C-alpha cells in the first residue's frame, strides 16, 4: 500500500473519491458515508487515516465509489485543502463560478442543469 | 481449468504444455507454453513437432500474444492449436479468434455465456486478418 501524505502543523487528512455511478466528487463523512460537500468530511490524523483508507478501499469493492485517496487539508471550518488541485475538487472549476459546489448541497442534478442554462 | 473453444476446431484438452524456459535447452514433447517476450521465430525448427502452443497473458491488457499468434499462423504457417491462458476477459473473444487462437483456458467457475455472446456479436469486421478474412 502506498505511503500516505503526512499532514503538517494545523493540517488534517480527509478521504475523497469519485462516485461510481455519476463520477461526482465525494468526501468520507461520519458513519463512513460518502458526502458531496467537503464541509461534511471527517478529519483524520495521519495514524487514523491509514486504517480508514483500508476500510474504504475494501468497501469500494462493493461498487459505490472509485479512485479513493487521502487529501491534506487545513484544519479550518470547513476544512480547506492545501493544494490547488484539491481546492478545485472541493469547490468546483474556477472558470465556472456558476458550477461551484459551495452552495450546491441543496440542489438536485436537474436544478444543476437548469442553472447551467 | 475449463477450455472454451473459439475457432470450432477440435481442441486437445489432455495435452500438458512444457514451459518454454524448460523446453528451449532440450526441446521435447508436442505442447509448449510461451511467455509474451519470446519471438515465435525461435520455435521455427520444431514447429512441425508441436500440436499445442499456449500463449500466456499475465494481464489482459498486455496484447503481445495477439501478434505472436498472428505471426505463428501467417509467417510460420503453424497449423496446430493455439491456446490463450492467463488473465483474459470475454470482451477479448473476437480479438483472440481473429488473430488465430483456437481456445482459451478459463477457470472452472468461469461463465462462458459472456464468451459465446461476444463471439456472435458482430456481423462483419472492418479489416482483413490473415487468419480471418472479412
Amino acid at each position: 500500500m502506498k505511503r500516505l501524505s503526512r499532514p503538517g502543523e494545523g493540517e488534517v487528512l480527509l478521504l475523497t473519491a469519485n462516485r461510481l455511478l455519476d463520477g461526482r466528487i465525494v468526501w468520507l463523512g461520519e458513519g463512513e458515508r460518502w458526502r458531496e460537500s467537503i464541509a461534511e468530511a471527517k478529519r483524520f490524523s495521519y495514524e487514523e487515516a491509514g486504517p480508514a483508507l483500508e476500510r474504504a478501499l475494501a468497501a469500494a469493492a462493493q461498487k459505490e465509489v472509485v479512485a479513493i485517496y487521502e487529501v491534506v487539508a487545513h484544519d479550518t471550518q470547513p476544512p480547506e485543502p492545501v493544494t490547488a488541485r484539491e481546492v478545485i475538487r472541493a469547490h468546483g472549476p474556477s472558470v465556472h463560478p456558476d458550477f461551484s459546489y459551495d452552495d450546491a448541497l441543496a440542489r438536485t442534478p436537474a436544478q444543476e442543469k437548469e442553472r447551467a442554462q | 481449468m475449463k477450455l472454451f473453444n473459439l475457432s470450432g476446431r477440435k481442441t486437445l484438452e489432455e495435452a500438458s504444455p512444457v514451459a518454454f524456459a524448460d523446453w528451449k535447452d532440450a526441446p521435447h514433447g508436442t505442447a509448449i507454453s510461451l511467455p509474451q517476450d519470446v519471438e515465435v521465430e525461435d520455435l521455427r525448427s520444431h514447429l512441425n513437432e508441436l500440436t499445442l502452443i499456449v500463449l500466456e497473458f499475465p494481464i489482459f491488457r498486455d496484447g503481445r500474444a495477439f501478434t505472436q499468434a498472428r505471426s505463428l499462423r501467417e509467417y510460420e504457417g503453424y497449423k496446430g492449436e493455439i491456446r490463450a491462458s492467463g488473465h483474459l476477459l470475454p470482451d477479448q473473444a473476437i480479438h483472440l479468434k481473429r488473430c488465430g487462437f483456437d481456445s482459451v483456458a478459463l477457470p472452472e467457475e468461469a461463465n462462458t455465456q459472456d464468451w459465446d455472446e461476444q463471439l456472435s456479436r458482430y456481423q462483419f469486421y472492418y479489416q482483413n486478418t490473415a487468419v480471418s478474412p472479412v
Partner: protein
Amino acid sequence: MTQSNSHSVGHYQYEERDRAFLQERINEFEGQVRRRLAGELSEEEFKPFRLMNGVYLQLHAYMLRVAIPYGVLDSRQLHKLADVAAKYDRNYGHFTTRQNIQFNWIALQDMPAILRELAEVDMHAIQTSGNCIRNVTSDEFAGAAKDELMDPRIYAEIVRQWSTLHPEFTFLPRKFKIAISGSPEDRVAARFHDIGLLARPSEHGPLFRLFVGGGLGRTPVVGQELFDSVREEDLIATLEAVLRVYNAFGRRDNLYKARIKILVQTIGLEAFRKAVEEELSRMDCAAYRLTPEHVAQIRARFAVPDLQAPADAASLFEQHKQADPAFARWVASNTHPHHHDSYICAVISLKTPGAIPGDVTAEQMHGLADLSARYAFGEVRVTHLQNLVFGHVRKDQLYDVWQGLQKLDLAAPNVGLISDIVSCPGLDYCNLANARSLPLAQKLGARFGDAALQAEIGALSIHMSGCINACGHHHVGNIGLLGVDKRGAETYQILLGGDGGENAAIGGILGPSFAEDEAVEAVARIVEFYLAQRQKGESFAAMLKRCGLKAFKEVAYETV
C-alpha cells in the same frame, strides 16, 4: 461520386452495416457497464473498455470524448451534439486539439443512452481513448484548399475503418495517433504523430510519405521519415507492419516510455525500418492489399459539393469588404483560399478573447449548424487548433455568414493571431493536470484582445498545456506555456520557438517558472520586445533565431 446533399458532404456516408455495427458496439458497452455495476468487472478491468468507448473519469465527473473522424461534421450531427450538451451535460462542449469534442459532466449510467443518440446521426466515441489506434485526424481545409495536392479524407476513412476494433492492435503498449494530409503545407502536424502521412498524386497513383515516432508529451520528438513513397495498394500493409513491430517490441514496463517514439529512438530509425521491411517481406500481402475497388467504394460514399456561383460573386465580395472594414479585418485573418475562385474557406474562431478556448454552447452549436446548412453544404470541420471551418462558402454569401457568426458571438477576427490560443482543459477539469490552463488562456486572450493590436503583432501562436502530457501542444507554439506543480501551487514555464508545421521545431524552455500573473506579464514583455526589435516583415521565429533565446530570457525575467 454522388452530388451533394446536406448530410454527406465531406465525410463518409454510413451504410446500413455501419449502423448495425455501431448498435452492436453500444450493446457491448452497455453490457460492460452492467457487469461493472454488478461487480463482475473490477475498475481495473473496466477502465480500458470504458476508455475505448471515450469515457474518462476526470476531476469532477465522467467525461465523454466523441469522435469526429478527420474533423468533419455535418449539420445534423452538430445539432445532435448540441442536444446531448443540453440534455446530459451542462449545455456546452469543448473542441479538442485532436478534432474531437468532449463533454465534461456526464454520468456513467447515461453513457449507453447518449451513445444511442449519437448513433442516430452516425456518430460514436470508439477509440477516442485507450491504448489503441485513436481517431484519425486530417487537414481542416481538405477538399477545399487551393494549395491541396489531393484530398486525404478518403484515406483517413480507410484508415479509420481498418483501425476500428482491430483484433491485433487494441491492447497496444500505449495510445497510437495517426494524422494524414494532402497539402504541401502541413496543417496536421504530421511530424508530431506516431504516424504522419503526407499524400501526393503521381502518375502511378497516390503516394504517401510516412513519418514515424513523432509526438509531444513528456518527451517531445520530431517524427522521422520512414518511407518516402508508400504506394496506395501498400498503405494498409505498411501500417500493419509498423504496428506489429510496435506491438511486439514497444515498452510495457514504463508508461512514460511506451510510445512508439521511444522504441524508434532506442533502436534507431534504420533498425526500425529494417524490422518493418522484414514484416512486409513475410506478410501475406494479398490479405492486406488496398485494392482500387475498395478505394473506389469508399470514395463513392463521399459526396462532392456542387460548386456553382453567380458571375459577380467575387466582385460582390470585394464590395462587402470595402463597405465594412470590420468584415474586411475578419476576412483578412479568418479565411483561407479555396480552389474554386468564387468560393472561400471560413474559419470560425472559438477563441473570443476572454472566453474559454474551444468551448461552445448548445445554442451556438445549433446556430452554427443552421448557418452551415444554409451557406456551407451542411458541413463543419474542426481544426487541430480548436477552431471550426466552413469549407465551401460562396464569396458573395460570406458577408451573411459573418453577420450570422456575430449574432452567435463567434466572429472574433483573430485566427492565427496572438489571441487564437490553443489550450487544454487543465486543472479545472483534468485528472492529470498540474496547473490550470484556462484562466491563463483567458487572461492572455483578454490582454491581447484588441483587434488592431493583434493585427499589428501579426501571426503569432500561443499554446498552453496544464501538464507535460502536452494536450495543448505547448512545445509547438511560438510561445508555449506549461503548467508546473510547485509543492501544490500552480506555476508556469515559458517556451519559445516551437513550430508544428513544415519547419517542425520544439520550443526551448526559457527558465524558471512564473506565477500565473507574472507569466501574463512576461509574455507581454516578450511580445513588446518582438514589436520593438523586429525587422520589417520578420516573423517571431525569425527574430528569435536572429536574437537568440537569451535576449528574450532577459526581457522575460526583467522585473521578476
